[in-house]
């Protein structure tokens, strides 16, 4: 019997109440992450990746944002399965930072400038692991060692402004990992860093994942990074998951036209663009008002009348799933 995944998001819908009225930045996200696995969540800017991850963390901005539909099932260390979307916030707080941790995109601003990095890591450790002050500081030093920050014993007393962006992102990782989470959400953890540092951080996250067997939900724009770190990929478009596949399958034979379009934007693919498919560099059109039909239909070269009028479900097929009426025809 296969054990249930660590995280299983089922048909998630998130609504925001803003001054301009209600918006629904996430409206049909289904994805799962198993223990020890890295799942990449990709999609263009504004497609709802961060909102999805904040919903998992229970950190949607209040009182504007709320989960309107769907479940976020999480398997706790105790093997108990809980629905994070329906959890009281006091319970959620106990999971946050201990069983589920998150790394944010902006290493330069994500750490508190007036607290030493040791204090910031120790705070989390004391909260969840019940250690005293001395034990927590010791743990902080261990964590800094673990993320390969040289001279950790001294640097534990430093403040964020004394460190480079790459070092700060290592501190963020140390902070996130300090209570041995079983799920790590990394929201574009390397976007703000230069390429060599980026590679080091990716290697670090990957090493930690292998060593402790945690699941990683890795949000990124960068398909190069996806190819490198992910086991499976979930593609989002306009608040919906349009395709989920093992990484090799997705790169070899994308099923959703949006995924193909994304892959064609990769520099390596664009060069051999003479293979009949005519989409290069950028996907024409913009995300329109999403109504009943397929959200991508207005920009899709394969769309037919039915794509615009009937709602399209995410169709599962073995390890893969796609939200497209015509994927079989298009592939053939």
């Amino acid at each position: 019997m296969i054990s249930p995944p660590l995280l299983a998001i089922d048909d998630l819908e998130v609504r925001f109440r803003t001054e301009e009225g209600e918006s629904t930045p996430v409206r049909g996200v289904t994805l799962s992450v198993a223990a020890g696995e890295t799942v990449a969540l990709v999609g263009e800017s504004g497609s709802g990746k961060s909102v999805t991850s904040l919903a998992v963390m229970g950190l949607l901005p209040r009182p504007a944002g709320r989960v309107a539909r769907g479940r976020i099932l999480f398997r706790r260390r105790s093997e108990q399965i809980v629905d994070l979307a329906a959890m009281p916030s006091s319970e959620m707080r106990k999971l946050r930072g201990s069983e589920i941790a998150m790394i944010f995109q902006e290493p330069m601003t994500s750490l508190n400038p007036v607290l030493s990095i040791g204090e910031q890591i120790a705070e989390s450790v004391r909260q969840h692991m019940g250690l005293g002050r001395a034990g927590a500081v010791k743990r902080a030093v261990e964590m800094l060692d673990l993320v390969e920050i040289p001279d950790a014993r001294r640097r534990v007393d430093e403040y964020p402004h004394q460190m480079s962006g790459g070092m700060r992102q290592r501190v963020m990782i140390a902070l996130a990992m300090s209570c041995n989470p079983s799920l790590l959400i990394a929201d574009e953890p390397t976007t703000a860093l230069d390429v060599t540092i980026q590679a080091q951080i990716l290697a670090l996250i990957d090493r930690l994942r292998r060593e402790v067997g945690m699941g990683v939900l890795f949000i990124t724009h960068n398909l190069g990074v996806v190819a490198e770190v992910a086991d499976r990929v979930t593609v989002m478009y306009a608040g919906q998951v349009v395709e989920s596949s093992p990484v090799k399958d997705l790169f070899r034979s994308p099923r959703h036209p949006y995924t193909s379009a994304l892959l064609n934007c990769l520099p390596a693919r664009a060069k051999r663009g003479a293979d009949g498919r005519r989409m290069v560099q950028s996907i024409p059109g913009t995300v329109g008002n999403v109504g009943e039909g397929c959200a991508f239909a207005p920009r899709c070269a394969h769309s037919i009348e039915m794509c615009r009028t009937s709602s399209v479900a995410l169709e599962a097929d073995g390890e893969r799933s796609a939200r497209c009426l015509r994927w079989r025809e298009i592939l053939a």
Partner: protein
Amino acid sequence: MWLTLGRRIGGLLIVMFLVAAMVFFLTRLAPGDPAALMLGDQATAEDIAHLRQVYGLDKPILVQFVLWLKEIATGNLGQSIFLQRPVTQAIAERAEPTFFLALFSVSIAALVGIPAGIVSAVWRGRVVDQIVSGLAMLAANIPSFWLGLIFIQFFAVRLGWFPVAGYGDPGAPFVERIAHLALPATVLGIVNSALIIRFTRASMLDVLSDDYIRTARSKGISEIRVVLRHAFGNALVPIITVVGLTAALLVGGAIVTETVFGLPGIGNLVVSAVLRRDYPVIQGALIVVAGIYVLINLLIDIIYTFVDPRVRY
């Protein structure tokens, strides 16, 4: 850090020199001869000339200035024309009510203003915020003399809880004298809390949307901890500034409040000195007040280094 401190103190001396020059020349610009004023209508020209000589008022103005600078540099602020005693002594006698009034007022203003500002920011747009912001607006616009009179009428005259006015007998026990400050300090505390509320609210709102607050929340710590440790810790610099400046202004003597409550403080001293053209007292008081103002600013800078590591290194 020591270098910065040295530079600050150098700047402070320059500021004090400029203040001294301004104080001296501006008081001389005002019309009216203090010697003539002092001696009254019946005085002869000789009497006036004699008195001018005694106080050095007959010398060229630049000479007067240099002599005066030399004196204040050694801590001698001269002799009061009317009070028949050294200016330093006159100021020292009046310092106690002003100092404690300032201390109590600013404490009340901070104890009311900071929590109110935090609450207002955390529940931004909600009913509490609207109430607090409304009260702050009201407090900012109430004239202190009016509030003072209402307080006297109600708490002192009607209820008899506090002395009506004055500062008691100089020989009375300290606690008894201090009791006279309860009402004026509350009035000034309320009036000055308005600015502190607004600064605290704005500063907290600014900080609460920062990325590290989201990080703090992602650690699963309590919301109180997020607000007080992570947000307030970062909002402190502007709050300290406004509290410090409030204190500095109050040390200068809350002239209106001192007058309403009949407190024999610095503000009171300056007002009577102005009416009598008692140059040495006016100048001396202004120098002392400016000096305290500048010192409080230095103190604020030093406190910054404790709350913000980015200033320290």
